[in-house]
């Protein structure tokens, strides 16, 4: 916060810049920065999706030329899977869910005109953009992009002679470190804005769940990322300076990196999960016209999950050569996490009870999130149980499991958020029919991609292998309904092609709706939270007059009111209050 200078008046603080560059590229407006994050994230998602297309084609039709890519060599394959994972987590899920929605929603939902530190916010995006450029540049350097998996285990990542991509590994590492800097800068804003700039009358328990979730995610990120940044610096020195922190040949210990990585890596799952859960909470309340069932319980379960998430990291390392006795502790903590997460699911489902449910596009995405994430959650139990993990570790079972968590988070959560807030972002309604076509065209192929992969993993297929021809046990015929293992791989790839093709429907829908869609008005969904008070799209400075908050965020179907929603900003005894 600025020191005790007299606060400028609302008008004086917000004159919109006239210049195009200042308005759209160099802006400090949280909504513009949100759009920058969103556009960059979607662009990176297209690249990550293209990578998936290339390596899935190689798996289904080994050695064949992939249309639009060419031959996938072993080093290409490794670089593609590595950067697919890195991009989808750090350059898609993080910028879209945490940064884009965090930037767009937090000031609007807590009722203030901008972030607390708008210039830090601008810097955050600029650093993020730079990080994306560095990552993409790694594909064009000598040796090519890094191919040692997104976990970057040394010594493979530390020693150029082993990875054969000395420059690519370093650029990958620098890009990831820059990306962390960007999100630390962004997170400062999310936390301070939600805590300090709330509209008068908004108590902590009146804050919409999605804001809470993004704030808690930022706190988790801040607390967990330190060790990995330290690790990244050490790995960078191993690569470029000649130290040996992680290389046993020079006296280091590769397991140390695994601890540093997963101490960050596991909370990171919750960093991207929580915003998606928050978006889902908003959607379920709005479209079942129900007050969120047990608001405080949700908050407490999120706190519990957040704290527990710092105690489970070594379940990624059960068979990595850590002391076997550690596995017992981490099995217990890992399974304990199932309690708050299960409770959260129950609360979401209980919110549907006696609701009045409209199945439009945002609601379909929200409900699909719960359903698909449940599959991801329950399959995680197999991997958290140390005895079962001996077999499943590093198989396609793991891969299918975390895609059933990350796909709902990064893709379903994003579509849920975009379809819900599109009217607010752009002032136009999205076409519901095209939206539903896109929804079913995404969800059905998604399940057809990853259910076969669960079976392949159960059959013993390991990850990150570009061609299974050398493994007779992985080329068996007739393993499932008469299909052979290669048939299952082809099924997954064909489903991916169908799913990618259906994404065109979404972009067509956005284009047509922006061009011809009906105007949205302020509050098309009849929702209660503060962002729906502003005009759509909200002008520079958001609110004409800063709002006052009179009640909790989810007062739907209140018995004392004729209308089935009671916005946070409506005074108790104002017109249409219906009470007293």
């Amino acid at each position, binding site marked *: 916060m600025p020191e005790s200078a007299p606060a400028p008046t609302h008008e004086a603080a917000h004159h919109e810049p006239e210049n195009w560059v200042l308005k759209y590229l160099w802006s400090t407006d949280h909504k513009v920065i949100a759009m920058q994050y969103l556009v960059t994230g979607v662009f990176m998602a297209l690249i990550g999706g293209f990578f998936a297309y290339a390596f899935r084609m190689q798996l289904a039709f080994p050695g064949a030329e992939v249309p639009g890519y060419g031959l996938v060599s*072993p*080093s290409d394959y*490794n670089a593609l899977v590595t950067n697919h994972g890195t991009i989808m987590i750090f350059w898609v899920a993080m910028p879209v869910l945490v940064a884009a929605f965090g930037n767009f929603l937090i000031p609007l939902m807590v009722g203030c005109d901008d972030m607390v530190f708008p210039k830090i916010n601008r810097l955050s995006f600029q650093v993020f953009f730079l990080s994306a450029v560095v990552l993409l540049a790694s594909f064009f350097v000598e040796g090519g992009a890094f191919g040692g*998996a997104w976990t970057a*285990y040394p010594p*493979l990542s530390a*020693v150029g002679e*082993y*990875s*054969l991509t000395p420059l690519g590994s370093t650029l990958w590492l620098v890009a990831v470190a820059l990306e962390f800097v960007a999100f630390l800068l962004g997170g400062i804003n999310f936390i301070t804005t939600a805590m300090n700039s709330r509209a008068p009358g908004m108590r902590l328990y009146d804050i919409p769940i999605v804001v809470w979730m993004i704030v808690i995610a930022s706190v988790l990120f801040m607390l967990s990322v330190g060790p990995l940044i330290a690790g990244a610096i050490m790995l960078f020195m191993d690569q470029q300076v000649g130290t040996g922190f992680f290389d*046993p040949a020079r006296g280091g210990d*590769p397991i140390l990196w695994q601890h540093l990585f997963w101490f960050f890596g596991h909370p990171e799952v919750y960093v991207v999960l929580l915003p998606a859960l928050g978006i889902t909470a908003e959607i379920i309340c709005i479209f079942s016209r*129900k*007050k969120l*069932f*047990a*608001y405080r*319980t949700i908050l407490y379960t999120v706190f519990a999950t957040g704290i527990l998430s710092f105690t489970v990291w070594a379940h990624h390392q059960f*068979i*990595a*050569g850590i002391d076997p006795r550690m*596995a*017992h502790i981490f*099995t*217990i903590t890992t*399974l304990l996490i199932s*309690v708050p997460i*299960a409770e959260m699911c129950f609360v979401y*489902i*209980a919110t*549907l*009870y*006696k609701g*009045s*449910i409209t199945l439009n596009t945002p609601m379909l995405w929200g*409900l699909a999130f719960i359903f698909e994430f449940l599959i991801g959650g*329950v*399959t995680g*139990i*197999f991997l958290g*149980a*140390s*005895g*079962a993990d*001996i*077999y499943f570790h*590093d198989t396609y079972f793991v891969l299918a499991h975390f895609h059933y968590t990350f796909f709902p988070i990064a893709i379903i959560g994003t579509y849920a958020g975009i379809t819900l807030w599109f009217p607010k972002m752009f002032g136009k309604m999205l076409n519901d029919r095209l939206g539903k076509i896109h929804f079913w065209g995404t969800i059905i192929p998604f399940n057809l991609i990853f259910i076969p992969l669960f079976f392949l993993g*159960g*059959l*013993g297929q*390991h990850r990150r*292998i*570009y*061609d299974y021809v*050398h*493994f007779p046990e992985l080329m068996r015929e007739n393993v499932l309904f008469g299909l052979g293992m290669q048939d299952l791989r082809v099924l997954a790839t064909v489903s991916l092609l169908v799913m990618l093709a259906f994404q065109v429907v979404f972009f067509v829908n956005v284009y047509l709706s922006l061009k011809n869609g009906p105007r949205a008005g302020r509050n098309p969904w009849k929702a209660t939270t503060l962002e729906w008070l502003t005009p759509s799209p909200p002008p520079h400075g958001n609110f004409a007059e800063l709002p006052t908050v009179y009640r909790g965020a989810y007062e*739907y*179907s*209140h018995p004392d009111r004729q209308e*089935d929603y009671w916005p946070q900003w409506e005074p108790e005894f104002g017109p249409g209050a219906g009470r007293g």
Partner: protein
Amino acid sequence: MIEYWLQAASTYAGDIDFVIELVAVIVGFWFFLTVGIFFWLIFAHRVSRSPRAEYLTGDEEQPKKFITWAHMLVLVCDVFIVWAAVQVWYEVKQELPLENGGQPQVVRVISQQWAWSFVHPGADGVLDTADDIRSVDELHIEVNRLYHYELSSKDVLHSFSVPVFRLKQDAIPGRVIRGWFEATQTGSYDIQCAEICGIGHALMPARIVIETPEQHAAWLAGHSPTQLAAR
């Protein structure tokens, strides 16, 4: 369940499969219950059937108890899973069994970019003697006999994975990791590398050949360096 798709060929494979099946039963129950309720609620409370929602805060006793009870039950289920998982883990990874009080056979498994090599103790049953047999990409063992392995790596991380044994263990350069297995049926099965180790990661197939004592003795005799030198 797993055995239906992939043979179990070690003494502990069945125990690992048991944990997997136990987890499958427990989470399957919860999953189908939850999803059943979920779809039923969506169907029962769709807008055409219930035009106005009811105002529930979540503090009412009736709906609240379903959530409280459910999460207690989840905790109980967790205890069962932990119990089963920890037991099997202890058996497979923590405790190195000994063969009837005597010394078990020890084999060395050495990983490198991008091949497996194995050191067998030869006819005298002791490593580091003149009749040690080295082989590349093929590990020969006797059925129904306890083996300890000493796993090491020459360069980067690798992972020694024998799916039919349900066994997997990462190899770390600079360390020797000990573990054990005992095969229960003869045959020749895949060994995979399960940890990405560079561009040749897919080119690290090896076979584990499980033989009867007679076959194994014949193989040892045919490959013994002392005998080969004498020939």
